[in-house]
């Protein structure tokens, strides 16, 4: 099923949004709007992550015959799509802040906007695409490690 275009990204996103659902269940939260917005944000963020991976692994996907966005749409159009999703993720975060579903510390999540913009551009840039493999994977897999300090810092401030 994951060989179909976009299904893999969506499935990973939905799977990792279980972290949010689990945390909501743990605290028996009644703030359902915050939970839904966070889930949506996580699905998009993780889907974006897998598509960036696909941009890096063009050769492997071509050999394995897997349809991915970069192979079907081309690198440039995929980059535009990712920048659009990145913007939507930021809008969801801001929406949560303005309707007071999230605490003000959610503004720390906006760091994902420049962070992903950098990843989208950096990871497909030819000299880097094949080099610095471990650094690239660390940056891609450790996205929330980067966001936690900003959120905690703002949580202490407000």
């Amino acid at each position, binding site marked *: 099923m994951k060989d179909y275009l976009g299904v893999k990204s969506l499935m990973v996103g939905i799977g990792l949004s279980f972290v949010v659902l689990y945390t909501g269940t*743990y605290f028996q939260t009644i703030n359902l709007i915050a939970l839904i917005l966070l889930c949506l944000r996580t699905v998009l963020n993780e889907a974006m992550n897998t598509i960036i991976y696909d941009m890096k692994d063009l050769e492997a996907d071509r*050999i*394995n015959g897997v349809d991915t966005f970069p192979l079907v749409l081309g690198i440039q159009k995929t980059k535009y799509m990712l920048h659009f999703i990145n913007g939507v993720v930021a809008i969801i975060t801001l929406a949560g802040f303005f309707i007071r579903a*999230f605490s003000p*510390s959610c503004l720390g999540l906006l760091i994902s906007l420049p962070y992903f913009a950098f990843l989208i551009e950096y990871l497909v840039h030819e000299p880097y695409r094949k080099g610095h*493999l471990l650094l690239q994977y660390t940056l891609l897999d450790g996205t929330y490690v980067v966001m936690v300090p900003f959120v905690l810092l703002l949580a202490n401030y407000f």
Partner: protein
Amino acid sequence: MMNRLLALIFSSGIIVGLSMAGLAIITNVLLSEPVSLHLALVWFSITSGLYTANRLIEGDKDAAVDNIISSTVATYRSLLLIFSVSMSLLGIFLAFNEKLELGLLIVLTILYFALYTTDLKKIVFKKGVDV
């Protein structure tokens, strides 16, 4: 040697595990609840375990393009397998130890990713050939 160690750390899913623990803490904070390290630990264990399992299962695909990560997975296959099983079991234990519903949610997550990783089409096709 250093690169090999980093590749092993990456293949073991420790980084993605830390990231998901981070997501649990962020959700904690955004829901205005006190930070729970228990949740972070559950997600660290489960994600590391499942990520390593996925790396081991999809090792053949990764090896299509030879790089340090696919070669590290091939070299340390048994070590990664032990790590994967231990971390998954630890996550399940911690979740059930906290609450039955949370344990069931974790089992549901594992089933979901098992379905994601398994190539259903291939299994059905193989069965068809056997008949």
